[in-house]
């Protein structure tokens, strides 16, 4: 094919010194009869005296052509791109334009500048304006005189704290955090059993304050809470304290900067705080689950705003919760537990596993009620200093759990209604049995926390555990 039939597109901007440098080359190309379309990103009067210059200040063409650097020369073959070159490289331009001489007075090479279409925040704007992004959610117009944050409260979208207003651009940016399609349906969210799309998750993740890279974790958490064994509907509706606690395992926890160390269960880490909150906002907004509505909690607990942390796998002497639950060490997962609040356990004197197990067991018995057995599940969030006691004696996690099970198993006769002058208690038909505090598998241990403090946390769970109510569920975090 001869170059006479080819056409060229040249995209540039005036604020780029390399684009200014190549200005005289354009005249040479015109003189040589090359059919050249020129588009300027910032000034349609630039380059001057270069014939017709297209105005691409809206950046539509630059976005459609995927321009990343200016100048960019694209060689077309019947409207189809054949090849392109970026910046000024005399030999490249001579080859592309099939000329023996070009820009003889210019230096041989100058790199280009960034295209205006790829400036920070711009690709999402352009994708929204010109692209095929199609967001299905209803658009809600906020009045000029309305405060955006107040309007979110007034519409009932908030958990009681301010939310980030879910503008289209923020949602588009959030969706860039996943490869999944916005219209993919994850399932039906209770209590209203409404279809939850990736798009709805993204909107609520925006409101919760998530960064886009957290979105895959939020999606996995939503998927996990929709697993039947988790019993999200009942968990929401119960008068008991519980709400979903999210434990993150695997490399993503570190990648997105989650806290598994000092104050892991507390405030101050954006990923911990907003991932747990996003899950709750999905339940609230997509599922329609609100306090006073289907959420009938007598007291609730502060974890119902957000309760999410990462396990400290790196420093642990044991396999992680995820590995224990059948995943590979390199997989990232979420595990959800129907959790109450945090109960502290102090033991600053035990240096032997047996003594520490006895301490933990004594506190574990109070989950739900000291006279209850096999009702709630529980997690122990074991601190580094407490785990060290077991590590130094080479106790495995299974050994610890087995010993705790023994130490928390009691004769039913001690737990009956009326015993100890307490009307509350287990039913009479269990009187002659030994009753473990927790159902098999109902007690779990994860490691988290700061390096100082011989304290651990017990997180008790919903009185309705196992098949009767909720079991912990895990889900791999995708992309």
């Amino acid at each position, binding site marked *: 094919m001869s170059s006479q039939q080819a056409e060229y597109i040249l995209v540039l901007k005036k604020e780029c010194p390399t684009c200014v440098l190549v200005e005289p080359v354009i005249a040479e190309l015109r003189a040589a009869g090359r059919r050249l379309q020129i588009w300027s990103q910032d000034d349609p009067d630039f380059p001057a005296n270069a014939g017709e210059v297209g105005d691409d200040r809206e950046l539509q063409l630059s976005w459609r052509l995927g321009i990343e650097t200016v100048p960019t020369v694209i060689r077309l073959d019947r409207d189809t791109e054949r090849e392109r070159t970026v910046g000024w490289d005399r030999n490249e331009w001579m080859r592309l334009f099939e000329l023996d001489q070009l820009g003889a007075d210019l230096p041989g090479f100058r790199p280009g500048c960034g295209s205006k279409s790829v400036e920070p925040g711009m690709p999402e704007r352009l994708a929204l304006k010109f692209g095929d992004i199609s*967001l299905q*959610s*209803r*658009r*809600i*117009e*906020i*009045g*000029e005189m309305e405060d*955006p944050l107040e*309007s*979110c409260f*007034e*519409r*009932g*979208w908030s958990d009681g704290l301010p939310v980030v*207003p*879910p*503008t*289209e651009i923020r*949602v588009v940016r959030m969706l860039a955090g996943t490869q999944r399609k916005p219209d993919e349906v994850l399932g039906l*969210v209770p209590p*209203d059993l*409404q*279809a*939850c799309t990736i*798009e*709805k998750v993204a*909107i*609520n993740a925006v*409101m919760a304050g998530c960064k886009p890279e957290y979105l895959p974790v939020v999606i996995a958490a939503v998927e996990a809470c929709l697993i039947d064994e988790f019993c999200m509907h009942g968990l929401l509706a119960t008068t008991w304290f519980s709400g979903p606690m999210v434990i993150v395992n695997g490399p993503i926890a570190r990648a997105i900067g989650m806290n598994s160390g000092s104050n892991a269960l507390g405030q101050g880490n954006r990923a911990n705080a907003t991932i747990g909150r996003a899950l709750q*906002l999905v339940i609230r*907004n*997509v*599922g*329609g689950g609100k306090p006073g509505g289907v959420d009938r909690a007598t007291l609730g607990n502060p974890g119902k705003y957000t309760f999410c942390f990462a396990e400290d796998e790196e420093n642990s002497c044991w396999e992680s919760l995820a590995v224990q639950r059948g995943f590979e060490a390199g997989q990232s997962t979420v595990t959800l537990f129907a959790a109450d609040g945090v109960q502290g356990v102090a033991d600053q004197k035990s240096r032997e596993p047996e003594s520490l197990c006895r301490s933990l067991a004594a506190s574990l018995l109070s989950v739900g009620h000291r006279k209850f057995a096999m009702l709630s599940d529980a997690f122990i969030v074991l601190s580094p200093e407490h785990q060290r006691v077991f590590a130094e004696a080479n106790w495995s996690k299974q050994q610890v759990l087995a010993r705790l099970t023994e130490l928390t198993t009691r004769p039913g006769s001690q737990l009956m209604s009326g015993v100890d002058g307490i009307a509350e208690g287990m039913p009479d038909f269990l009187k002659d049995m030994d009753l473990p505090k927790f159902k098999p598998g109902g007690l779990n241990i994860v490691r988290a926390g700061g390096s100082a403090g011989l304290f651990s946390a017990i997180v008790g769970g919903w009185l309705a555990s196992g098949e009767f109510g909720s079991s912990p569920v895990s889900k791999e975090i995708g992309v």
Partner: protein
Amino acid sequence: MTEIFLDPTSELNAAAKPLLPRLQSLAGKTIGLLDINKPRGNVLLDRLEQLFNEQGVAVKRYKKPTMTRVAPLAVKQQIASECDAVVEALAD
């Protein structure tokens, strides 16, 4: 400039801000009557009070210090905490 938000809900409800639920019945309810301090507002409210009383409905009276401004926060809070609904007598 107006802002556009994407609806985070399942869109079961109208996009507009919802009104508070209306009373289904006046039985056992307390109705506030708010005089905005415009002339003859009391005439309307006195008559309403009489009609409510005939139906055995409890009535409480409130008054704004001036019709030119929105009700002071304390008045709004008092009405909200003491009444199930409020009737406001607007204009002359």
